[in-house]
């Protein structure tokens, strides 16, 4: 199977999945989207295995690394500033700003933690140390 055929199949699967999720949400059924998403992922994975064409190589990975790093930096800074602002604004009030800010702050901390764990792992892996 060519990558072009796979792309067409992927679009169809995503449209069907989005339609089913939309229908489920409209009818107030929160459980249907979970199996739908899992089924869509499995179907796409099976079709993806059938693609013999090379679609990902070292250049794509290199681009993905750069994009990930810049996304991490932008999101980290933007979310940290937003979290601090929300916490400051909701400090003395009974609004949800404080809670949202705190949740965002924890999310940023979690992201930074995952980054450093991954960094330590790869630093050790490629450092030559045993």
């Amino acid at each position, binding site marked *: 199977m060519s990558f072009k055929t796979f792309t067409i199949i992927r679009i169809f699967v995503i449209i069907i999945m989005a339609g089913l999720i939309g229908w489920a949400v409209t009818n107030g059924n929160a459980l249907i989207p979970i199996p739908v998403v899992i089924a869509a992922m499995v179907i796409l994975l099976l079709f993806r295995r059938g693609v013999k064409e*090379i*679609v*990902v*190589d*070292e*250049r*794509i990975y290199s681009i993905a690394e750069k994009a990930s790093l810049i996304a991490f930096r932008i999101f980290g800074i933007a979310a940290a500033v937003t979290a601090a602002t929300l916490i400051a604004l909701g400090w003395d009030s009974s609004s949800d700003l404080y809670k949202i800010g705190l949740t965002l702050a924890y999310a940023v901390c979690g992201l930074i933690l995952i980054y450093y764990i991954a960094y330590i792992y790869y630093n050790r892996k490629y450092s030559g140390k045993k």
Partner: protein
Amino acid sequence: MANASINNRIRRLRFDHGEMTQEELAQRVGCTRQTIIALEQGKYVPSIELAFKIARAFGVTLEDVFQYEE
């Protein structure tokens, strides 16, 4: 380091090898055609592994394909 560049003769070598297409070379070395295009335009510097694969695809040494200039 700042003024260093890596040039290559991939385009020349492709034509010397029976006008090998970019797609053909990409399949031989296991990368995408877009990567070959980027290499020929000097927009991407390959890994050592890919550089060796390209050199082997043409049956030449690494230095015959890639030149490091300061």
